[in-house]
């Protein structure tokens, strides 16, 4: 179970549930739309205690489900290619009971990828196998093989895409919120916190074609965002960081500590002449 602000991913039984407000049915119940299962979570122990099939009322109409299912398949494909440890869910945000063309509905794509080093359980004690059911899955779970790679660091990538299907204008509006965090604390403590929002739109097509174009828009924006993060990093040494402290003094030579008398003299003279401070 991995907690990231309001997104919590739980591997319970044989499905993966992203515990977020979008998946919340009741206060302890979270829907996994892919398997149509509902996980019942004990928030105190932060484990999944039980699982049940979702009821018809909890699931979208067949019409909306067609769009949701198609998008989920495309996003899964994309996640598999782009995020080595990524998980995703596609929910119906609004209009889940829309039966056919003529009304608006909204899908929400949640993507998250995270890495946590096992040494830092003080923050993530719940990564440890807590119950038998979770431990079985954790043995097969992929995050354990990152142990030797990242010792003292954590990181997470989260994207939430609100996708509104606007029937009257036949347009799909996309609104993405991307958030990336990384934390490295070996003999120091340094953190990256980055956020970005983006908008785009496309036209409404049949479920499968809509899914393909929505997924490709998401892929495009997330790829661009990664490139802009890399650009921010490469601007650091010579531009951004320089406004905090230069690598070398303005004189481009090391500070003349052996000859600081010259400064007091020049200062005295400028003071007497009434120039400078």
């Amino acid at each position: 179970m991995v907690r990231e602000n309001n997104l919590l991913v739980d591997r319970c039984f044989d499905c993966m549930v992203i515990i977020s407000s979008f998946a919340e049915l009741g206060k302890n119940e979270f829907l996994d739309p892919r398997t149509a299962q509902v996980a019942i979570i004990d928030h105190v122990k932060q484990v999944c205690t039980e699982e049940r099939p979702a009821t018809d009322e909890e699931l979208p109409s067949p019409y909306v489900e067609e769009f949701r299912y198609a998008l989920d398949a495309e996003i899964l494909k994309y996640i598999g290619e782009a995020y080595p440890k990524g998980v995703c869910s596609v929910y119906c945000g609004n209009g889940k009971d829309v039966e056919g063309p003529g009304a608006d509905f909204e899908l929400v794509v949640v993507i998250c990828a995270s890495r946590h080093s096992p040494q830092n359980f003080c923050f993530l004690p719940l990564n440890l196998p807590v119950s038998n059911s979770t431990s079985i899955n954790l043995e097969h779970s992929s995050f354990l093989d990152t142990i030797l790679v990242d010792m003292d660091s954590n990181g997470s990538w989260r994207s939430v895409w609100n996708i509104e299907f606007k029937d009257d204008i036949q347009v799909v509006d996309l609104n993405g919120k991307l958030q990336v965090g990384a934390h490295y604390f070996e003999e120091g403590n340094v953190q990256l916190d980055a956020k970005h929002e983006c908008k785009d739109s496309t036209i409404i097509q049949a479920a499968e074609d809509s899914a393909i174009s929505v997924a490709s828009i998401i892929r495009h924006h997330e790829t661009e965002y990664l490139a802009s993060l890399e650009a921010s990093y490469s601007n650091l040494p010579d531009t951004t960081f320089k406004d905090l402290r230069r690598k070398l003094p303005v004189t481009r030579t090391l500070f003349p500590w052996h000859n600081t008398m010259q400064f007091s003299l020049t200062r005295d003279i400028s003071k007497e002449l009434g120039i400078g401070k």
Partner: protein
Amino acid sequence: MEAAMGLMRRMPPKHIETALSALLSLLPQHSSDLLSQVDQPLQVLCDVDSGKEFILCEYNRDADSYRSPWSNKYHPPLEDGSLPSPDLRKLEIEANDVFTIYRDQYYEGGISSVYMWEDDNEGFVACFLIKKDGSKMGHGRRGYLQEGAWDAIHVIEVGPVEEGTAHYRLTSTVMLSLTTNNDASGMFNLSGSIRREMNMDLPIQEGHLCNMGRMIEEMEGKLRNSLDQVYFGKTKEMVCTLRPPSEVVMRLPET
């Protein structure tokens, strides 16, 4: 206390102040230890006599007042506030003057303060502080940063002079935060702190100030370099682990 320090070492830097105040209420019996061991962003006061700003820290504090290095007076005024000896004060004045120029050359702005006091074993301790606001509203010359803070604390313990040589033990901490924000790439913030130690035995013919200054200059260079190369680099590596740049992904199926 050990657990508390372990926690603070791993706490995301921008939550340090919140975490510290939480720990203080949980462990009131350790409050002075916590306050002296956990580095917090530096605060500044204005010296009423000289009109110049000075930096506050544990080393210029007496009761609830802080001594200005410019006027040697406590703010708010404090009777019998402890002062360095006249000789040490002379060195302190010189150090403040020279460090002001050093700071200007490397930081192109910012505030610096140097405090000195006698210690128990015939030597003395000096604390060199720098605070720089590198944002475009502050002293950021190039205007790249929405927000940018660099706080450096250098504490040097200088041992007694023996056969023309003194031992210097420097402990330096840098805390920083920088944020860029634009439409194309959104909000990008890096923040954190590192602390390192350096020990040296140096001949004193060029004077303590010269030795201390060189050590600080070397240390600041190293800290800046580690932050830039190692720490920022590690967070970038993490991002690329979460989502490898496309070239890497393309190669995956072949392996």
